[in-house]
C-alpha cells in the first residue's frame, strides 16, 4: 500500500499538473491527458503508430546493436592495451563533447535519406558512451585481483575472462543503459531533423497539421518504448550482477 502510494503519487501529481496546463491553457491547442490517451488509442487502432514504431525500432536496433558490437570490444581493447586507450580517449572525448546534431548534414550527404542514416546517427549518439564505460570498467579492475590470479598461474586469456571482464561488467552494463537512452535521443533527433521516417515523422506530421493530441500521444508512446527497453536492460543487469544485491 505504502509502495503503491509512493509510486502513484508522483504520477498523479504529474497528471494533475498536465490537466491544469491544458485548462489554462498554457499554449495554443494544448491537449489534456485524456485527449492524449484517446489520440493514442486512435493511432494504435489505425496501425499508424505501430508501423512508425517498427520503422524506428529497425534503425534503433541497427544503430544501437552496432554501437554495442563495436563499442564494447573497442573499450575493452583500450583498457587492456594502454597505448590504444591513450590515443582513442582523445577522439572519444571529442566525439562526446561534439554537438552531435551538427553531424546530421554530413551523415545525410554520406548515406542519403534512409533508415541507415538514422542508424548512423543513433550509433554516433550512443557508441562513445558505451565505449568509454567499457574502458573505465577495465581500468577499475583491482590490481590485487590480477596479482592473486597471477600467483595461481593464470594465463593471459584467463586473466582477461576471469578477472578483467567480470570486473568491468558493472560499468559495461551501466554504459549500455546510458547508451540506450542516448540511442532513443539520437533516434528522435535523426527522424525529426533528417528523415521522413518512423516516430519522428509522425511527430512532425501531427505538429504541422495542428493535431497536438496526436503529437503528444506519439511522444508519450516513445517514452513508453524507451521505458520498456530500459526496464529490460535493468532486469538483465540485476540478473548478471546478483552478487551486488547480496
Amino acid at each position, binding site marked *: 500500500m505504502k509502495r503503491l502510494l509512493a509510486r502513484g503519487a508522483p504520477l498523479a501529481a504529474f497528471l494533475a499538473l498536465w490537466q491544469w496546463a491544458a485548462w489554462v491553457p498554457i499554449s495554443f491547442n494544448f491537449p489534456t491527458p485524456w485527449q492524449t490517451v484517446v489520440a493514442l488509442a486512435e493511432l494504435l487502432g489505425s496501425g499508424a503508430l505501430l508501423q512508425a514504431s517498427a520503422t524506428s525500432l529497425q534503425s534503433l536496433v541497427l544503430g544501437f546493436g552496432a554501437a554495442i558490437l563495436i563499442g564494447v570490444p573497442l573499450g575493452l581493447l583500450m583498457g587492456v592495451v594502454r597505448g590504444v586507450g591513450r590515443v582513442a580517449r582523445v577522439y572519444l572525448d571529442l566525439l562526446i563533447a561534439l554537438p552531435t546534431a551538427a553531424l546530421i548534414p554530413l551523415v545525410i550527404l554520406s548515406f542519403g535519406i534512409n533508415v541507415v542514416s538514422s542508424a548512423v546517427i543513433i550509433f554516433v549518439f550512443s557508441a562513445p558512451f558505451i565505449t568509454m564505460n567499457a574502458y573505465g570498467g577495465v581500468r577499475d579492475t*583491482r590490481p590485487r585481483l590480477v596479482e592473486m590470479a597471477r*600467483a*595461481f598461474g593464470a594465463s593471459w586469456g584467463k586473466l582477461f575472462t*576471469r578477472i578483467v571482464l567480470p570486473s568491468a561488467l558493472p560499468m559495461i552494463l551501466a554504459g549500455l543503459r546510458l547508451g540506450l537512452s542516448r540511442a532513443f535521443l539520437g533516434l528522435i533527433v535523426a527522424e525529426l531533423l533528417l528523415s521522413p521516417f518512423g516516430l519522428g515523422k509522425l511527430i512532425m506530421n501531427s505538429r504541422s497539421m495542428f493535431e497536438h493530441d496526436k503529437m503528444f500521444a506519439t511522444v508519450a508512446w516513445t517514452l513508453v518504448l524507451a521505458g520498456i527497453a530500459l526496464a529490460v536492460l535493468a532486469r538483465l543487469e540485476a540478473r548478471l550482477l546478483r*552478487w551486488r544485491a547480496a
Partner: protein
Amino acid sequence: MSATLGIAIERLSKSFGAVQALADIEIQVKAGEFLALIGPSGCGKTTLLKCVAGLLPADAGRIVIGSRPVSGPGGREASLVFQDFALLPWATARENAEFGLLLRGAPAAERTEAARRALAKVGLAGSFEQAYPAQLSGGMQQRVGLARALAVNPQVLLMDEPFASIDEQTRRILQDDLLRLWSEERKTVVLVTHSMEEAIYLSDRVVVLSPRPGRVHRVLDVPLPRPRETLDVRASGEFARLVDELWQILKKMQ
C-alpha cells in the same frame, strides 16, 4: 600426500629503480617450519614475500622452494594469502575457494570437492558456501581466502599480513585456527606481520628485517611449547619476555 618443502633464499637483492628494497637476503626456511617476517614499514617484507611467490623477479640471488628455483608466478608449491583477502566479489565463497583450481584447469567435480574440503577445514561448511564475500564478515572472508590457498594443496603457505585488517577478538580465533591447521597439515609457512605478539605467538623463528635497504637484521628463536592454541601460551611469562625482546630489537632500529 607430498613431502613438505623448505625454502632457500640465497643472496637475494631487489631494487625498484634507484631504490634498493632488499639487499643480500639470506634465509633458510626449514621444511614444515613456521617463520615470521617482521620489520618497520619500508623494510621490504612484503616485497620479499612477493619474490618468493614469483610475482616479482629478483635482481640478484635466487629462491629455491624444495628443489625448484622460483622463476615466475604460478608455481604449484606455494599459495598466497592476502591482507585484503583478494576475493572475487562476484563469486560465492565456494567459487572463490575453487578459483585456484579453476585457473589450473582442474575438472569441475574435483574443484567442488576440494573447495568443500578446504572450506570445512577453515570452519566454513554448509550454507556459507553460497554466500558472496560482501555477505561475510572480515574474519570469514579471510577464512575463504585461506580455503582458496589450501584447496590447491600447496606445500608452502605465504601469508601477507593476513589478519591485519581483522578485529582483535576475531584475529585471536583465526590465529588459533591457523595453528591447528598448521599442526594438522604440516605445511611450511612464511608469515609477514607487523604485530610482535602475532609473530611470537605463531612462529618457530622470527626474522627481523631492517629498512632501506631491507636486510636480515636478527633472527629470533621462539622456543615456546606447542600446541600453543591449547596451552594458553599468551599468559606465560616466557611469551611476554620474547615479545619484549623483539620490541627491544625493533626499538633500536627506529
